[in-house]
């Protein structure tokens, strides 16, 4: 009798153990490129691939349509117009020039053009061609390809900063 009770007890215990110990699948280190929407080759180092998220990938697309002609040394068509211009436009990945500029400044110079921001009038305004999202995407792209890498201003995320960004989303037209 006792034996049977013990047997019953153990079988329940086993059942319990089985439920609680269901093995976890071994985690495989994912390929970072498989986790990215798109990628861009670092212009200074062909072996370095930079993963891009959706927004940055849209920035890349707009860059290669509209901006590459003057802000890169090689273009999809071959030669670039960059060397033709004085002052020479910054390369899009030139962090030493672009990193100190704030997002706000970049947004304004792309929207309003160089002459509105005290820079060369050769940079045309894109505010009537590109949407606000396009311009945000372009800035996201140039930030992620910047060499030396771009460090966002060290500011702890707070409710205040969240509110501020949501205000920026409604540009005054």
């Amino acid at each position, binding site marked *: *009798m*006792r034996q049977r*009770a013990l047997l*019953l*007890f153990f079988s*329940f215990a086993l059942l*319990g153990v089985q*439920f*609680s110990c269901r093995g*976890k*699948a071994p985690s495989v280190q*994912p*390929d970072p*490129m*498989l*986790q*990215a*929407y*798109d990628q861009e080759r670092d212009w200074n180092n062909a072996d370095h691939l930079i993963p891009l*998220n*959706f*927004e940055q*990938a*849209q920035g890349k*697309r707009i860059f290669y*349509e*509209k901006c590459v*002609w*003057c802000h890169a040394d090689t*273009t*999809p*068509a*071959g*030669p670039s*117009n960059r060397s*033709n*211009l004085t002052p020479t436009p910054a390369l899009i990945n030139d962090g030493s020039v672009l990193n100190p500029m704030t997002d706000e400044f970049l947004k304004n110079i792309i929207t309003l053009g160089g*002459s509105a921001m005290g820079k*060369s*009038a*050769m940079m*045309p*305004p*894109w505010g*009537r*061609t590109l949407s606000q999202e396009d311009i945000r995407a372009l800035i996201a792209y140039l930030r992620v390809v910047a060499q030396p890498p771009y460090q966002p201003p060290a500011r*702890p*995320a*707070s*409710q205040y900063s*969240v509110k501020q*960004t*949501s205000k920026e989303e409604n540009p005054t037209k």
Partner: protein
Amino acid sequence: MNHEEMGRPSQSLRLTFAIASVLFLFVLAISPLKDLLQEWKRYKREYVRFAQSRPDTKRLLADYHPGIDQIWIPNLNVVDRCSTCHLGITQSSLLDPSVPEPFRAHPIVPHRAQEWGCVVCHRGQGLATEVSEAHKTTLAWEQPLLPVGYIQASCGTCHRGETPETPQLNRGRDLLVDLNCVGCHRLQGIDRPAMIGPDLTNVGTKVSREWIYKWLKEPRTMTDSNGNLVVNGYENEEEPRMPQFRLKEEELRALSAFLSSLKSPAIEPYKFDPRVVAAWEKKPDLVQQGEVRFRQMFCVTCHSLAVTRAGETKLIGGDIGPELSKIGSKVNADWLIAWLRNPKSYLPHALMPRYQWTDEDLFKVSRYIQSNLTDPDLLSNIPALGSPRPDEIQLGQRVFLEKGCAGCHVIKGTKSPTDFGPDLSQLGSKTVSQLLFGEAKIPHTLVAYIRTKITDPLSVNPAARMPQYHLKPGDLEALTTALLSMTGPPATSGLAHLIVPAPQAAFRPAGRFGELYERYKCYVCHRFNGFGGTLAPDLSFEGSRAQRPWLIAFLKNPQTLRPALTSRMPQFGMTEEEAASLTDYLEMVTQSPSVNPESANPKNFTPEKASLGKQLYEVKYQCQSCHTIGSGGGYVGPNLNNVGNWMNAAWISAWLKNPQALVPDTIEPRRDFTDEEISALTAYLTTLKQNPRATGSSGKGGTPGGSQ
């Protein structure tokens, strides 16, 4: 047992009851304990702790509730419980990559998770509440998560047309067309074209048996004079459309025998004017003159040639037609001349335009091709094959059908098999249990299966007839993405209305214009109302843009002033009548509703206005950063030296007002010009005229992107 003891439970029975009740209590406790220890509850508790560590706790916990969360979208038939653990998915303050998963917010994408759920794009099991069941394949849950690198496949399940936001998917779809996958497979959204590979009905009149043998064995390889391989079609981006099949020696011999025996109808040699032959035959620079003509006609806009620069051999030129570096050693002389005179007589669906040749040009150019575009070693490593024997021909015909050659190549009198390869139009929705992995040592996922099937078909199925493709890494991912997007009809009726069909455009004009449009194959490079190639400018509104005399002169003698361009419009040798007919039609039909011919009256363009316009051009707006006038300026936009003869004033002013209204993808930014400024700039630009006799009269094309 005495009677007092009767009815009283014995000692052992008590013990059994005691153990049983303890066990019963224990069993009762299992269920609540299990419930308490569930994975998703752990994540919920973690999220609360995480939110408390953030400055905006209140906001992060505003929608929090301790149960299972789900996004339910009845009209899509979507029930997603992903947000049970992915609690911060809609919190804009959690976008930063330093936020630990699963609490990070979703990056900004066009479809918000609240409206679309997660599985519509990411696949996986929306109903599952365990990490492994939601993300991976288990026995009961078959749909694993799609790796983010292939996520554009999900865009393609609904967006059947081209979306600019998905470069990888677009590239993959282009590759499916370029690699002629529809030759053997049925694919979703890609129709069988009129011609896939060349029609081989009388290929024996074009090439020799040895050449066919070589081509079947190793399509497109090039060796230098020392026998070193310099261009390998498989290792660079110039992969030939013809894939490499695994053919045995006897199959190679049989196929080459069969194909070289196809010689009807025979080609009648063209009789050159004897005076032309007599005049040119003896000239020492005949071949050089032929080369000059070949270059002037801009054959390289569509065909590439191997060029060796600084010790590196590269193919330079377009990829619409085949590469021609060794064409002189490939084709038979009579065939070449017949082809150049009228490509349609050999291939009814040829893309090559029918040029107007003079006997002199035809003689020079064909001589140049036969003597310079050759490779004496092309067939040096081919065994002597002799003339085809009847048994070889018979075997060859069988091999032709068995290997699926007829999927792409037509031979009159031979029946083409339909659906030679498996139907791939629903490949993207196949579950792992539907796939056969064979001996392949690859992860058992659909993505790995598709990749392996393309790069190494034999490892998955030793009996596969599929040829092997050697794709660059990016292209392999793109092709896989395009195949994953083919999920067949939508899973639910709720999803059916989301399908955005690909636009079906065709422009097949009739009449004299239609005849010339077919003869010169305008649509291979130019686009008309969304139909045609993208190599050259869109001509949908050409009639509003160009002035009649300029257009006629351009068609007769196309010019460009952009030294950067390797491709430009070929010289077709059009007659005056042909150029005038084409121009008449374009001026009449291809008019833009945004351009009002009355809007710009040349009488208003006074010299004062023009000089104001010049000032605006040079100082205020600095247009010279992109456009060239005279000898200075940039070369992003077209050269404006002759714009006064080239464009209509109404077009210029409409363009300045809103370029995207006329050419949607032009790179010229839309500016904030006042009407006054537009009128002044138009006045200035219409004064820019060049003597038509001057060399390089005008640039052509709206954008560099559109004219390359």
